[in-house]
């Protein structure tokens, strides 16, 4: 037994397929009861990592521990994990009831108890009365629930989910996200969830590992990822972000004075070691942290003059793209449709002011 913080632990895990490095020296831990997501673009090694956890692939280097036990010598059918496959993999020759009961045979469970558990599981995924159907008689969302129930009925220590919502349309997907989260909270099983949809990961997870090219760039809670990304790559992948290059002129009392392209002399909170006098760094700011106003604001915010190029209406907010002298790329500014932030006097082509609070600036190392 281990403490709850390193319920699942990866130490230096890599996987090579010939010359392809699918997973590259990953080390992190997952706590008991977490909803942990692996997020990254296509081909970054998410499925490969999940398959190593399930035991279908063995790591080239490193070791995976689940609940303190090393997994390298444990075959898939003896692992305390169960998986929800991307295409669900529901046995086509068996009906839903037999699919759910399939794995219980190996847990030495009495017949009456099996029947009871199957009904309970069907109830849990809101499919009572579906026991006699075959997989070709189910909709995509129903299949997904059957796959989920078939894995959960085994009461695994860790549930692995490989983009289980990928095949569903947007509406059903959002419904299932809520159900999935509620389910996870009620059963208390540790979920490891693969997705390439950052919104989905942010909505569902307690923590997220952002991956590219087999590496974990950052492992953090959704809030931390959003507000404190550690690199340009992470910042760019999670939500939308404006970047400007800057040089550090001075660092004092946790504050950096910077010379930023187009923005001029600005100050920003500095906590990392790479922010040193003379260093070239990147300043990042979220679109919704920028403010547009017709007049220069008198509340001491950083400000610069700009012109509005284009705008895009996104339903709940407007996106303005504004250009600042000296900056190549326009800044994206998000303005809530009827929020306090909105300023009806904003006029295209006229010169307006772009302002920000110093605390909302994020300093990132240059790659």
């Amino acid at each position: 037994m281990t403490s709850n913080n390193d319920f699942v632990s990866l130490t230096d895990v890599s996987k090579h397929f010939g010359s392809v490095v699918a997973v590259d020296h990953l080390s992190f831990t997952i706590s008991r009861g977490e909803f942990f997501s692996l997020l990254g673009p296509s081909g970054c090694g998410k499925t490969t990592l999940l398959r190593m956890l399930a035991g279908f692939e063995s790591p080239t280097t490193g070791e995976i521990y689940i609940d303190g036990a090393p997994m390298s010598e444990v075959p898939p059918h003896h692992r305390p994990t169960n998986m929800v496959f991307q295409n669900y993999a529901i046995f086509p020759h068996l009906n839903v009831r037999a699919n759910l009961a399939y794995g219980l045979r190996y847990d030495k469970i009495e017949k009456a108890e099996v029947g009871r558990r199957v009904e309970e599981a069907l109830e849990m995924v809101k499919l009572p009365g579906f026991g006699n159907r075959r997989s070709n008689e189910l909709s995509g969302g129903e299949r997904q629930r059957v796959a989920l129930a078939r894995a959960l009925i085994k009461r695994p220590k860790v549930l692995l989910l490989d983009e289980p919502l990928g095949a569903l349309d947007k509406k059903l997907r959002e419904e299932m996200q809520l159900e999935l989260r509620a389910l996870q909270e009620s059963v208390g099983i540790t979920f490891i969830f693969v997705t390439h949809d950052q919104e989905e990961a942010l909505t569902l997870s307690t923590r997220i590992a952002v991956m590219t090219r087999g590496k974990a760039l950052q492992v953090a809670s959704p809030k931390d990822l959003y507000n404190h990304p550690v690199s340009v790559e992470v910042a760019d992948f999670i939500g939308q972000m404006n970047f400007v290059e800057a040089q550090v002129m001075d660092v004092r009392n946790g504050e950096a004075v910077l010379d930023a392209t187009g923005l001029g002399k600005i100050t920003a909170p500095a906590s990392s070691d790479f922010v040193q006098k003379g260093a070239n760094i990147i300043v990042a700011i979220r679109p919704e942290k920028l403010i547009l106003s017709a007049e220069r604001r008198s509340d001491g915010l950083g400000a610069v003059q700009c012109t509005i190029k284009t705008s895009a209406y996104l339903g709940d907010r407007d996106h303005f793209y504004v250009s600042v002298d000296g900056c190549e790329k326009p800044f994206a500014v998000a303005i809530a449709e009827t929020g306090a932030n909105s300023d009806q006097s904003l006029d295209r082509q006229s010169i307006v002011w772009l302002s920000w609070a110093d605390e909302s600036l994020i300093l990132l190392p240059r790659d």
Partner: protein
Amino acid sequence: MTEVAYIDRPSRALYFYAILYLGFLYIPVLFLPMFSFNDNIYIAFPLKGFTTKWYMEMFNNQPMWAALNNSFNVACVSAAIATLLGLFGAKAVTRYRIPGEKPIIFVIMLPMVVPYIIMGVALLILITQLGFDLSLYTVTMAHVLISVPFAMATLISRFEGFDQALEEASTDLGASPLSTFWRVTLPLVFPGVLASFLLCFTISFDEFIMAYFLAGTDPTLPIFIWSQLRFPLRLPGVLALGSLILVVSFVVVFFSQWLRSYRVEKTQPGI
């Protein structure tokens, strides 16, 4: 104006061709049942009266029944062995990465194209050199050899038709590899197994050349029929038997083709 798309419009020339083709294929075969009911010892036109006496005679022909029994046994055993080998072979080829896979498949498929007379002679030399007696066992062995490629071809297409994730899901749920084979793999490829068995059965049942070289004193049915051709008196009885076999073969082949295509699409997990 017509509602049928151009490509779907019936073509007169094509119909004519199809009828000609089917006629060419089946009219000669139809002579067999026709003469088997003809009340004449000689196989010649004009037809005389209708009779079933050749069928009666056939039922009383003891050596013929023995030959039929031999053929049936050889066909059953060789089809079972070939299908079993084909099953393992197809699983290996489709499920594992084997070094030298392509050459291995080539060698397994080779008997499909090597003339049976060559293989028959080769096996005869081999078996006599090894000092084995010729018997129905040697015939069975030869039939396994020529049936395996057909079994493999039938089963590989079946294996490729279903998702490997199903087998992984089974092990993930706690089933050992053996248990997975019984509970998932076999049920899903079973129509292919049946089709393969029936195909191999018919291959063995009517195979003449190798059986002729390799059979000892017990003849298989094709050998027996061939030996009867020298006796005109026995010929109508052979025709009667031939007609019966024809009917049975039609049914078997039709059934196996139907099985082969049966619900392949439904055994795949849809998205």
